[in-house]
């Protein structure tokens, strides 16, 4: 019984996470400029990643596997914003301006 509940919760989390990733990808195609696309990507980076990995933790149960999954979450929460920041900063240094600023200047 408890196993069934854990299974249901886990699949709900994984499916929601997958949905978040799809929405994120859709947003990346739909947004107007690089910076707003970065915002779209960060939905998959945080929400999608967290939901899927927490869902997997419910599959693994209490144990070393879950401890490793927690470590993966911790490291991803530190590295993914760093990568995002590197991308945004590189774009700004190379003179890519947000669409909103361009419109304001004209």
């Amino acid at each position: 019984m408890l196993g069934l509940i854990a299974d249901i919760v886990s699949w709900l989390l994984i499916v929601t996470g997958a949905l978040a990733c799809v929405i994120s990808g859709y947003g990346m195609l739909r947004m107007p400029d690089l910076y707003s696309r970065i915002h779209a990507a960060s939905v998959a980076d945080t929400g999608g990643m967290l939901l899927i990995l927490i869902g997997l933790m419910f599959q693994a149960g209490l144990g070393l596997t879950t401890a490793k999954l927690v470590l993966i979450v911790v490291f991803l929460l530190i590295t993914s914003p760093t990568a995002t920041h590197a991308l945004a900063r590189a774009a700004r240094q190379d003179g890519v301006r947000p669409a909103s600023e361009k419109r304001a200047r004209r």
Partner: protein
Amino acid sequence: MRYLLGLATGLAVLWLLLSGHYAPLTMALGALSCVFVVWLCRRLGIVSHESVPLHLLPRLPGYTLWLGLQIVRSNVDVATRLLRGRAAISPRTVIIDTRTHDPLGQAILANSITLTPGTVTVGLEDNEAIVHALTEDGAADIEAGTMARRVARLEHGES
């Protein structure tokens, strides 16, 4: 010394979690590798309050919880805006005061801002952070400085 011990403890816990083998030989090898890494870090001179931020530990759970809530909230917000398309966004670039002069605190703040969907730290110079926000509301939230205050409290305790 405090930082060396903290680093050694952290490495030992990491090794125990990742290995999963508790035979005497592997334990001894693990202990040896921890000592070796601590020695290397000391020689490199990178053991300090920045690489081993022990002073943050007591207040870290509270901050993590608060940040987690922000992440969930903004994820839902940004996801619905992505579905609604261009009409739902109003991108802004704002410059904010980081409130902390410590590189570690600034890095935590910049990472926290980027981690919450809808806001990205584009640059960090002197004591100012350039933040790009997906919506006007998000920009106003960042300009209000709630997050900067939280990070300052995480670093220096209640103030």
